[in-house]
């Protein structure tokens, strides 16, 4: 019987190649697919088109790939807190497209849900609207198009062999949307559970969107800005 379950990151990412587009889940360092990113670093593929809200943060996550100059272009909403990206932007070594975060998430959803374009007020009258079709509804809006990727790499708290996923707290962020938009979606999980262990009503992402899944290892789950009540 055909299975989606792979042994580890290396097995699941067997067909990467130079020049692919890769969507990577996570907000800052929260919910990033650590194992898959490390595997991409290990393989050393180049000219990656990265689509991720932050393209790494604080020298971690996708910044591991930036340091090795594996990323040639980035689509994201926020580059602050990512000195590796800022440096390569200033040096003209990377082509960065900034997208408003709500438009970013909706464009990814649109790709996954087969919506070919949508009108949003976000960005109207700003640099973001340049070259885009504008149209008046109750507010003036601009036309935005779907954002797809060859691979989506995602991390979830729990996943089953069909690829049903459950995310913890705010680690969900862009991940289920990217899982919908990736042509090949590769998921790593903290816990690989049995079919049926995630209650059918509480599946956050149905497994039909997932092509490959594996049990991740050695998670660092770094807290970027710890602020505590006693501070």
């Amino acid at each position: 019987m055909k299975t989606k379950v792979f042994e580890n990151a290396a097995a699941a990412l067997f067909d990467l190649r130079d020049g692919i587009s890769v969507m990577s889940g996570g907000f800052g360092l929260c919910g990033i697919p650590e194992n898959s990113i490390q595997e991409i670093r290990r393989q050393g593929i180049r000219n990656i088109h990265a689509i991720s809200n932050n393209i790494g943060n604080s020298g971690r996550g996708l910044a591991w790939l930036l340091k090795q100059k594996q990323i040639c272009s980035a689509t994201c909403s926020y580059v602050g807190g990512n000195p590796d990206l800022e440096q390569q932007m200033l040096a003209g070594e990377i082509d960065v497209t900034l997208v408003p975060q709500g438009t970013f998430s909706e464009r990814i959803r649109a790709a996954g849900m087969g919506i070919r374009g949508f009108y949003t007020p976000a960005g109207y009258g700003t640099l973001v609207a340049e070259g885009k079709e504008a149209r008046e509804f109750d507010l003036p809006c601009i036309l935005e198009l779907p954002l797809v990727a060859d691979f989506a790499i995602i991390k979830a708290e729990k996943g089953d062999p069909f690829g049903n996923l459950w995310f913890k707290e705010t680690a969900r962020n862009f991940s289920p949307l990217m899982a919908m938009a990736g042509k090949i979606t590769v998921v790593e999980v903290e816990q690989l559970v049995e079919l049926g262990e995630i209650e059918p009503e509480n599946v956050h992402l149905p497994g039909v969107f997932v092509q490959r899944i594996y049990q991740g290892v050695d998670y660092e789950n770094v807290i970027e800005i710890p602020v505590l009540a006693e501070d």
Partner: protein
Amino acid sequence: MSDQPNPWTNLEMVDEVIAMLADGSSLNLGIGIPTLVAQRIPASKNVWIHSENGVLGVSGRPTRETVSPTLINAGKETISVKPGASYFDSATSFGMIRGGHIDVCILGGMQVDTEGSLANWMIPGKKVTGMGGAMDLVHGAKKIIVMLTHFAKSGEVKLLHRCTLPLTGKNVVHRIITDYGIFSPMGETFRVEKLAPGVTRDLLGPEAGMWT
């Protein structure tokens, strides 16, 4: 209290904002001064704080025991949540904003103008950080409040007839709180809603006709 102008402190600005908030309302708080709102707001107001990375019901800070790497706000700081909180994906989170379900959005700003346009994401020639969620946040919330100091460190007033920096949103701001007062963009002028103690209209900026 004398004739001497006595501009509000950050905390006084925050309290002015809190006075505008209705009981039970939902809020999105931008990075910077607005985050102080979460810490000063009385529990009796029962507000629901939204953070666009995918949480509604943000409460105070976590303790060393409860802190979680997967529970953060849009400023990437660790948070805790109150009973009734929920988590959701980013498309739903921005849909809450864009669809008009969040009552108030409180943002910081670099410049704001009499048309209600806001600039808060980019200074040409300086380091670019990206707009993050700001361009989405300014559309959809029922009320957009901008908190900023009245004057830049260079001495230039931040409330202008027309913004000179790249815009975050055009015609989007409903109310402005500075250390000098509270203002509403009226198209060609700012209506002065309230002034800080000792602040007079001639202190608000060089363009006298801009304040009505």
